[in-house]
């Protein structure tokens, strides 16, 4: 559409080496037809990459011819006639120039053309600019992305195969490593579990032994045996007898409280008569005595009370025995763990 601007008259001047009148031999009537087909012609030429320069020159020539024709007001008056849509853009003063000589008309056309071209540039130039910016952008992007994977893209097939087999081998190796590490992890986990179980068992055992050895406090059902002095002094033998009866009844832990302290009864506990009291281990106790024993309460109380046992002996010493069954007996007294110097586990 813009193609019909007087832009075309410029072209002959830009190519002064062309023979000026070479186009005049053409039929004038054909000129106008050509004008309608002009765009198509041009497109074809463009798409065929301006197959020949001669064609392009012919174009320019014809246009120039056309302009001259219009300016001189020649054969057909179409140029000055009611303007086609394309021509409506042009300045209105151009028809008035027509009667004058060819040269002034052409210069006026050139001037108006310059203005029109400027207007056109802002629109189409923007499109071209955007396209070219896009081109530059994608060009750089493509070049960059091509550079990044150039290592493998430019490698030869043999190299690639080598690299691939290397990777395969290393993958296999790593898989094996993973498998062996998982195996180790499983072993360690099961080992840890077994160790934990053994530890728990050992702890349980240590607790049991600690209670039996008297190194740990204990609690549980049992009996409380109170031995009061009424008219005499309780003998150590009587107290030892009571402890032995309790042990025979299955007492698991025994403690003797008296005024003067409390003593945990263990395997090595000794009972010695002292003046006015009893020395049990290192402590001197006086009555009344309270024996706490953990075990089956029924059995323990019967063991203390059965005929010819503890009670008659205490009574002969001038004392009295009171047995209480308890659901919970707390034995708090402990003895320090013995430091064995000689004896060692046999196994």
């Amino acid at each position, binding site marked *: 559409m813009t193609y019909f601007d007087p832009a075309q008259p410029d072209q002959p001047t830009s190519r002064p080496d062309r023979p000026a009148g070479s186009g005049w031999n053409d039929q004038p009537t054909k000129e106008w037809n050509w004008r309608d087909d002009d765009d198509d012609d041009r497109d074809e030429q*463009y798409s065929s*990459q301006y197959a020949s320069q001669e064609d*392009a020159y012919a174009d320019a020539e014809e246009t120039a011819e056309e302009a001259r024709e219009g300016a001189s007001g020649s054969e057909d008056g179409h140029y000055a006639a009611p303007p086609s849509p394309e021509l409506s853009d042009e300045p209105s003063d151009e028809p008035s120039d027509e009667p004058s000589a060819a040269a002034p008309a052409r210069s006026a056309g050139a001037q108006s053309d310059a203005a029109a071209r400027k207007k056109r540039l802002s629109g189409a*130039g923007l499109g071209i600019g955007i396209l070219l910016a896009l081109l530059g*952008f994608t*060009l750089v992007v493509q070049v960059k992305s091509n550079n990044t994977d150039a290592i493998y893209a430019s490698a030869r097939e043999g190299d690639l195969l080598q690299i691939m087999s290397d990777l395969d081998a290393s993958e296999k190796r790593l898989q094996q490593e993973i498998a062996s590490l998982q195996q180790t992890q499983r072993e360690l986990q099961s080992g840890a579990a077994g160790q934990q179980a053994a530890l728990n068992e050992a702890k349980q055992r240590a607790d049991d032994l600690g209670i039996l050895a008297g190194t740990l406090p204990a609690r549980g059902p049992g009996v409380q045996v109170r031995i009061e002095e009424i008219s005499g002094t309780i003998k150590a033998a009587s107290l030892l007898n009571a402890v032995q009866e309790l042990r025979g009844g299955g007492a698991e832990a025994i403690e003797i409280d008296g005024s003067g302290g409390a003593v945990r009864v263990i395997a090595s506990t000794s009972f010695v008569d002292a003046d006015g009291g009893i020395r049990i281990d290192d402590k001197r106790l006086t009555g009344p005595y309270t024996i706490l024993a953990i075990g089956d309460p029924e059995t323990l109380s019967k063991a203390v009370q059965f005929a010819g046992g503890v009670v008659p002996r205490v009574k002969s010493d001038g004392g009295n025995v009171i047995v209480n069954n308890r659901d919970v007996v707390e034995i708090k007294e402990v003895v320090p763990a013995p430091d064995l110097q000689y004896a060692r586990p046999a196994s």
Partner: protein
Amino acid sequence: MIAVLALIGGIVAGVILEPTVPLALQPYLPIAVVAALDAVFGGVRAKLDGIFDDKQFVISFISNVLVAGVIVYLGDQLGVGTQLSTGVVVVLGVRIFGNVAAIRRHLFRA
């Protein structure tokens, strides 16, 4: 002038932004770039010939890129993508060489 500035601007933007090519576009971008280059050289030649037309340039630019992309896509679908890409690049390369030769004749008269 605007065109040169725009081209430089695009290159600068590409350098600065450092985008990565989406995987779907990877086969088409190189061909599209070459096709666009062909259009640009054609435009430069037309300019030197004095027959440059904005609309024509824009249309030929876009259609070149689209046609090149479609050809590569078709080639991919037909299983001859690599060969067809090579063919397109060869044709476009020949055209670019022809255009550059014409430009050279214009500029250096040789």
